[in-house]
């Protein structure tokens, strides 16, 4: 059958930001299969120009409410690299704990509130309150606990307060940290294990679709990399973070206010599944066995499994949070003044694994500590070309289905990536002229 399709999903729901799915097929030939990004650009570069190093992270955390902790910490690392500011072991541990909290909260939000309704044929989480109340209550409890990590250490989970260049303006007490540890052990971990059981029961509804691509994430020798490491490509191996522009190769496409990226192939994937494919051996044992129980295999090429990889990471991040708190306790908490005395002025580049994948911030400062050039490369922007490539392979494979079924499969595919569209268009690279 020579099929004609004309799909336009305007303002896709249950994703962060504004995107449209556009698919055109004429006489069985696929002409277009795109995720159109229609979010208005915000031009963060113009906001950063001339701003002092103490303001950079306050501004860039506003790129995205969901990812504000990740932006803030990546921004601080880039500023510190540019200005030669050393930070203490305690600061690094507290930041790692914040990244764990942000990852748990974001992965829970996506798995339960944005993706799960698809598996249960619901249009949102709200009708599930009547049919699956215990599951919804558990999801809310897990989100609360994850946000408590952010609130305790950063003062606020959305647009954090205490993390500043060189350290923290205030730290929690050891008593508060040990109470958090108890809660992670007694409430967080059992809830995460229950989440795995819920997902096992839904795993059979996950579409079978496979398209190998290049997987890019951070990688290091010591842990399942979130806070630091080198850039790892599943195709070509490791690259230093300073050479990130050779990885991201951003380019403008007419159907997206966010730029696309490509490296060794026409597209690459970042995020939980890329981290799983590159770093799975460094997960905790419990996270590994959760992966097995949900059917997540090594070298998984099914993008619908991103949600499952996120659930695996929830287990890992809770266990890792417990471990980090124990390290902090062993170290003995100290009130430290943030180190804000620059030893140099120049360019600093940083990378962090935030929930949706590898995030780069790159600033150049003048001798007064003011920004003269800025560039941020966002995970969702890096995934866009890969999403388009997936849609182009998927549509011909499911062309015999009805149009509503095809639309549903495409919406689920885009949602699986947990795209953060606000992020992806809100900052784009630019060099400012001096003066």
């Amino acid at each position, binding site marked *: 059958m020579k099929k004609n399709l004309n799909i336009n999903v305007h303002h896709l729901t*249950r994703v962060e930001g504004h995107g449209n799915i556009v698919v055109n097929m004429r006489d069985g030939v696929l002409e277009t299969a795109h995720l159109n990004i229609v979010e208005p650009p915000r*031009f963060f570069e113009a906001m950063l120009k001339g701003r002092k190093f103490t303001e950079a992270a306050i501004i860039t955390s506003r790129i995205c*409410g969901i990812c504000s902790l990740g932006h803030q910490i990546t921004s601080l690392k880039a500023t510190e690299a540019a200005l030669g500011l050393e930070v203490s072991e305690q600061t690094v541990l507290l930041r790692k704990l914040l990244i764990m909290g942000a990852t748990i909260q974001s992965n829970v939000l996506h798995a339960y509130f944005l993706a799960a309704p698809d598996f249960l044929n619901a249009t949102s989480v709200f009708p599930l309150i009547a049919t699956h109340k215990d599951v919804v209550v558990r999801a809310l409890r897990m989100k609360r606990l994850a946000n408590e990590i952010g609130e305790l250490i950063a003062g*606020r989970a959305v647009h954090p307060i205490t993390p500043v260049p060189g350290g923290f303006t205030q730290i929690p007490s050891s008593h508060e940290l040990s109470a958090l540890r108890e809660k992670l052990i007694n409430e967080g971990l059992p809830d995460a294990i229950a989440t795995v059981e819920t997902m096992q029961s839904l795993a059979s509804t996950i579409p079978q679709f496979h398209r190998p691509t290049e997987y890019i994430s951070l990688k290091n020798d010591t842990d399942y990399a979130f806070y630091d490491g080198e850039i790892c490509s599943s195709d070509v191996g490791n690259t230093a973070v300073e050479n990130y522009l050779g990885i991201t190769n951003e380019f403008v496409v007419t159907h997206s206010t966010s730029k696309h990226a490509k490296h060794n192939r026409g597209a690459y994937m970042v995020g939980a599944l890329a981290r799983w494919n590159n770093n799975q051996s460094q997960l905790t044992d419990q996270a590994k066995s959760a992966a097995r129980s949900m059917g997540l295999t090594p070298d998984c090429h099914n993008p619908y499994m991103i949600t499952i990889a996120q659930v695996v990471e929830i287990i890992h991040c809770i266990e890792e949070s417990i471990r980090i708190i124990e390290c902090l306790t062993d170290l003995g908490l100290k009130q430290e003044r943030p180190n804000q005395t620059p030893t140099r002025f120049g360019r600093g580049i940083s990378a962090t694994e935030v929930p949706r994948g590898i995030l780069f911030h790159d600033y150049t400062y003048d001798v007064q500590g003011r920004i003269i050039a800025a560039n941020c490369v966002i995970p969702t922007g890096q995934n866009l070309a890969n999403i388009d490539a997936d849609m182009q392979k998927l549509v011909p494979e499911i062309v015999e289905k009805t149009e509503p079924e095809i639309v549903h499969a495409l919406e689920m595919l885009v949602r699986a990536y947990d795209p953060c569209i606000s992020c992806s268009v809100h900052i784009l690279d630019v060099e400012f002229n001096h003066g």
Partner: protein
Amino acid sequence: MKPKVAFFDFTGCEGCQLNKLNFENELLDILAHVDIVEFREVMDERADSYDIAFVEGGISSPACVERIHDIRRRSKILVAMGACAVNGGINALKNRQPIDAVREAVYGEDKYLFATLPAMPISAVVKVDLEVRGCPMSQPDFLKLFKALVFGKQPPKYDYAVCVECKLNENECLFNTGQVCLGPISRGGCEAICPGFGQFCTGCRGFVEDMNEAAMLKILTDHGVSRDEARKQMTLFNATEVSV
């Protein structure tokens, strides 16, 4: 009949919307008092009219202008939520730069591919009935307004400086610790959360009605900040409110 409530996002970070999902302990109670009929970030459904429309984010493109008119037409009460929606917030910083050059640097020869406008608050385009300030909007503040709306009461107004709440909380003044802070002119209602955590106030809830800009500049310059730096600091969340 429960009021029909909808949430919309314009140009912004969606952090204010996320903050509502962060009412984990209160969410089920909130849902008992209203019907959420549209909320694109978390649900598929759409509706034709709304008793209360909460709008996050600012206006920054012709498409935004059209969409907010449509929402206003179908809403009984429209609430602007968060700094971007209330006074332009951090988005408005771009208005103080030559935007054409920035567009060109970002998109190159495709600079006119995507239509953009100066960043504006919602009230620059349509009538706004009520507001929840802050970046992000404060959760207790939102709950107070929400309860007032549902029970037909007058929501609270804040027109006093952050310093007032800071003093009530017995925080040490940040000017005494070597920092500079916009507390003296910034609108309270946030419980002085940032100074409470040892971080300077950025004025994210806007300035008080009768703020003394000259006196604030003098305080900042007396503490070693250049006039240029001081003005920049004041524009961070208030590019539309600072005259200098």
